[in-house]
């Protein structure tokens, strides 16, 4: 028995990488669940190719899953992995550039054959030359040991080798002291119907653990204590799952049946899959013939008294634009969920981006204002869905919710809310006539507005006496009949805009994080950049500098106090995964000299680079020299 040393760490970033058929997403997901149950704070970053099975062993076929877990609260999946698990030469080569000096690399040597090395573009074996000299490399025959371990189950060699990801997971679980019960329970359930595969996977997992414990290759294991978190019950959740739950909750909290009309598209399809499982909540899911039919059916369902929802990504929003305009004109509640991905056109289907903000804002013919809200983390997608539903139902308007690929597939621990505390949403259906006639009787005017919200009545078919016609042609104020009157059109255009502007009256004041009130620089973001911005701000503060941070949930309308907040700071930095779309809106509305920090690499912003950009702006604003490198830890810091 080897004497093993246990080292304490406050945080670790592990990246599992392999061929897209190697089960790396599952491996990462299981490691994440184990870490979540253990009580670490964590953030994950899955990264996979758009091709389902790109040619085996090639660079384009590499799929990876990065998990950052810590004994304190963290905000990002980490800039650079401390540990890389590479299942083949391509996985090593594709990820090597992201590793800092001294990082640990665990390599499955089995696939380091001449053929695979060539496929990955290696002219010599990196395990045998000096090229990995700066790293702590552990060459291990994971596949060979897996095949040996599961021999007794009589699987084909191919099936036996497929369990290698569980062997790797077992090894890493040992190294980081992860609890194993949940993974064993998971495997037993997942492969319940195929006993030999089930047993082989459990055996491979346990063998990986035992290998770590007994081998001399690994002499150190690590302990990362649970992170202190607010009291409550937690689960690990991805953005798409949280968003789906938020939509189910919106149905329950409003008493409206949820109707999803959707067409499959990456990275939004998981919402369709998830909602299709919740029919018991009265959720209808229609997989339509195209994007337009998806939104059309949702508008029809809203007209008929459901909460109409359509889920898509950027290219789908482009196709739905005309129908969203119809919902603006007919003033019906509608949720449009855009899980943004790299664009334009087909772009980068599996990568993240925030470049649909201006499409959401302006991507329709005519003056067609649509409220926009954005979640800031995977778990926050739940609240964002409820808030989108509140606005849509209260103001009778389509609402655009901008998630993105990183939020959709990334995960974090989520404190499960108490259903009692969730907001209630009142559909407030019209029940009777609203317009008195001279005769003393009354009739129904579908475009008479609520004085406070400017919302029109929602009169659902089946309600006697409220028969009415709506449509895309301009409506006469009040009575809602077709009107080509110039003054009426001008009035209605302004009224639709005013209605959306009125939403700001219902928003809470913004939260500005400016601990000592001395900051001259404000970093303002929206959406999934919340994590990297927070991490970057912490670095700057840890180095002893002042910086304020605020994050927008509502992009249209902006919160009422935003202008005043912007005016308080000498410099405003706006980090975005686009070329400056929020910056453009802020400049237009507030005449503020917003400075952009923009990357469109298909990946989340890197906290360290962002911190440098913040530092530069602090240096300018305060006329000082800012040095983050010598004072700051190069890793993500706690508050």
């Amino acid at each position, binding site marked *: 028995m080897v004497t093993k040393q246990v080292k304490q760490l406050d945080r670790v970033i592990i990246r599992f990488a392999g061929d897209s058929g190697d089960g790396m997403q599952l491996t990462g997901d299981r490691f994440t669940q184990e870490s979540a*149950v253990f009580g670490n704070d964590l953030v994950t970053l899955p990264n996979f190719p758009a091709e389902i099975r790109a040619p085996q062993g090639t660079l384009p076929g590499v799929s990876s899953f990065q998990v950052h877990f810590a004994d304190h609260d963290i905000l990002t999946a980490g800039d650079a992995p401390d540990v890389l698990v590479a299942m083949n030469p391509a996985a090593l080569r594709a990820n090597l550039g992201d590793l800092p000096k001294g990082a640990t690399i665990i390599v499955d040597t089995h696939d380091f054959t001449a053929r695979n090395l060539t496929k990955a573009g290696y002219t010599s074996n990196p395990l045998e030359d000096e090229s990995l000299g700066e790293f702590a490399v552990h060459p291990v025959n994971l596949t060979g040991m897996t095949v040996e371990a599961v021999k007794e189950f009589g699987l084909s060699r191919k099936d036996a080798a497929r369990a290698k990801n569980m062997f790797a997971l077992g090894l890493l679980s040992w190294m980081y002291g992860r609890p194993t019960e949940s993974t064993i329970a998971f495997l037993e359930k997942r492969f319940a119907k195929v006993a030999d595969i089930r047993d082989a996977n459990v055996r491979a997992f346990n063998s990986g653990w035992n290998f770590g414990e007994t081998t001399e290759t690994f002499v150190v294991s690590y302990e990362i204590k649970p992170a202190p978190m607010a009291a409550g019950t937690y689960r690990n959740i991805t953005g798409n799952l949280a968003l789906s739950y938020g939509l189910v909750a919106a149905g*329950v909290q409003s008493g409206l049946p949820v109707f999803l009309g959707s067409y499959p598209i990456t990275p939004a399809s998981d919402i369709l899959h998830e909602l299709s499982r919740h029919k018991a909540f009265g959720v209808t899911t229609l997989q339509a013939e195209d994007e337009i039919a998806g939104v059309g059916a949702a508008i029809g369902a809203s*007209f008929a008294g459901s909460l109409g929802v359509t889920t898509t990504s950027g290219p789908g929003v482009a196709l739905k634009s005309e129908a969203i305009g119809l919902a603006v004109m007919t003033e019906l509640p509608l949720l449009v969920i855009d899980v943004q991905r790299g664009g334009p056109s087909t772009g980068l289907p599996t990568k993240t981006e925030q470049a649909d903000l201006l499409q959401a804002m302006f991507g329709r013919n005519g003056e067609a204002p649509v409220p926009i809200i954005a979640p800031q983390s995977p778990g926050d997608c739940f609240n964002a869905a409820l808030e989108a539903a509140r606005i849509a139902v209260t103001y009778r308007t389509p609402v655009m919710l901008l998630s993105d690929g990183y939020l959709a597939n990334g995960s974090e621990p989520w404190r499960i809310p108490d259903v009692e505390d969730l907001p209630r949403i009142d559909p407030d259906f019209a029940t009777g006539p609203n317009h008195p006639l001279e005769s003393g009787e009354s009739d129904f005017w579908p475009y008479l507005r609520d004085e406070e919200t400017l919302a029109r009545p929602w009169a659902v078919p089946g309600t006697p006496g409220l028969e009415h016609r709506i*449509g895309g042609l301009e409506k006469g104020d009040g009575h809602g009949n077709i009107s080509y009157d110039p003054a009426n059109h001008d009035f209605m255009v302004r009224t639709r805009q005013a209605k959306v502007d009125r939403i700001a009256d219902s928003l809470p004041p913004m939260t500005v994080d400016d601990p000592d009130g001395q900051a001259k620089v404000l970093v303002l973001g929206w959406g999934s950049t919340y994590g990297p911005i927070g991490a970057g701000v912490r670095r700057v503060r840890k180095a002893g500098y002042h910086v304020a941070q605020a994050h927008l949930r509502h992009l249209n309308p902006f919160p009422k106090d935003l202008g005043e907040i912007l005016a308080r700071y000498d410099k405003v930095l706006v980090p975005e995964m686009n070329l400056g779309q929020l910056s453009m809106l802020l400049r237009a509305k507030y005449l503020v000299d917003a400075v952009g920090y923009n990357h469109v690499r298909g990946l989340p912003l890197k906290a360290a680079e962002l911190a440098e950009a913040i530092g530069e702006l602090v240096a300018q604003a305060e006329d000082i020299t800012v040095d983050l490198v010598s004072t700051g830890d190069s890793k993500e810091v706690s508050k």
Partner: protein
Amino acid sequence: MTTTTEGTELPFPGLRSGTELVPTNDQPQTGKEYTSSQEVRWCPGCGDYAVLKAVQGFLPQLGLRRENIVFVSGIGCSSRFPYYLDTYGMHSIHGRAPTIATGIATAREDLSVWVVTGDGDALSIGGNHLIHTLRRNVNMTILLFNNRIYGLTKGQYSPTSEPGKITKSTPMGSVDHPFNPVSLALGAEGSFVARTIDSDRKHLTEVLSAAAAHRGTSFVEIYQNCPIFNDGAFDAIKNPHTKADAIIPLVHGQAIRFGVDGAKGLVRDPEGGGVKVVEVGSGPGQAGEDALIVHDAHNPDPTTAFAISRLTDSGYLNQSPIGIFRQVDRPTYDDQARAQISTARDVAPGEPADRLAALIGGGDTWTVV
């Protein structure tokens, strides 16, 4: 011979009615109740007027509650239809009415849903939605007003215009090959496919009754004259002197026979595999009465119905079968979607709030105290 479906048993015994879940009205209704306050603004002489009148006259006969009827349209002359009916209605966007109607019909079993569309709206910009609605068999009635021209945009050729048609956009003649709407609907798995004529109110009303009674997507092509941009497109079947030879009437259970004194009929064509027109009689080249095809709208196999639909001229219209080509029972999308929800609810009792708490609190959880 007449051009009506008189004598046809509709709805068919044993089949669920298209309106069976829609609340009925015990008070007699009038066409006036169904007439909205809006001034009708089609061109004088437009065939749409006749169809509107027929529908306003027919809806009271349905005996449904007026508030449970919804008309949805797209864009085009005919798509103004919902504004003139005092029911619930939506004048939507070009080609998309079937999608909106699908949402309405699936969300609500208690509504009678109607789509009003035209040849451009349904067959050009909205072709995809039309075929998929027919395939799904969503419970609604689609009225396709076919005037074989774009009217609202002032006279371009449409996907049903005859080849060679000279219009503003085709000064040397159209080189597009047209759709046959009935063939298309049959090919798209339509469970109820019919054709009627704007000017034959009796036949129109009978077809509408059968369409409303059918559970599933009822597709009705209505030949409709545009007096401004395509006047006379249907003269052959409207002219009293020629119509007997131009209209091939389809009546379920009856031999398909037409022409002056029933001189012509349809027989199977063993050479081409389809059907063909023959003279009825005992002379050389003629066919006896017993050789004529007896129309069977309920045949599960649509082959013969399709063959009959091919007798429609794609050029200038000299001959066209009129009536119900096909009516078969097939489960509807909306009934099945609602049944799944109801099944799921049966096995998940309890208050929604409690079930929501169980849902979001599921999975691997841990508690921090």
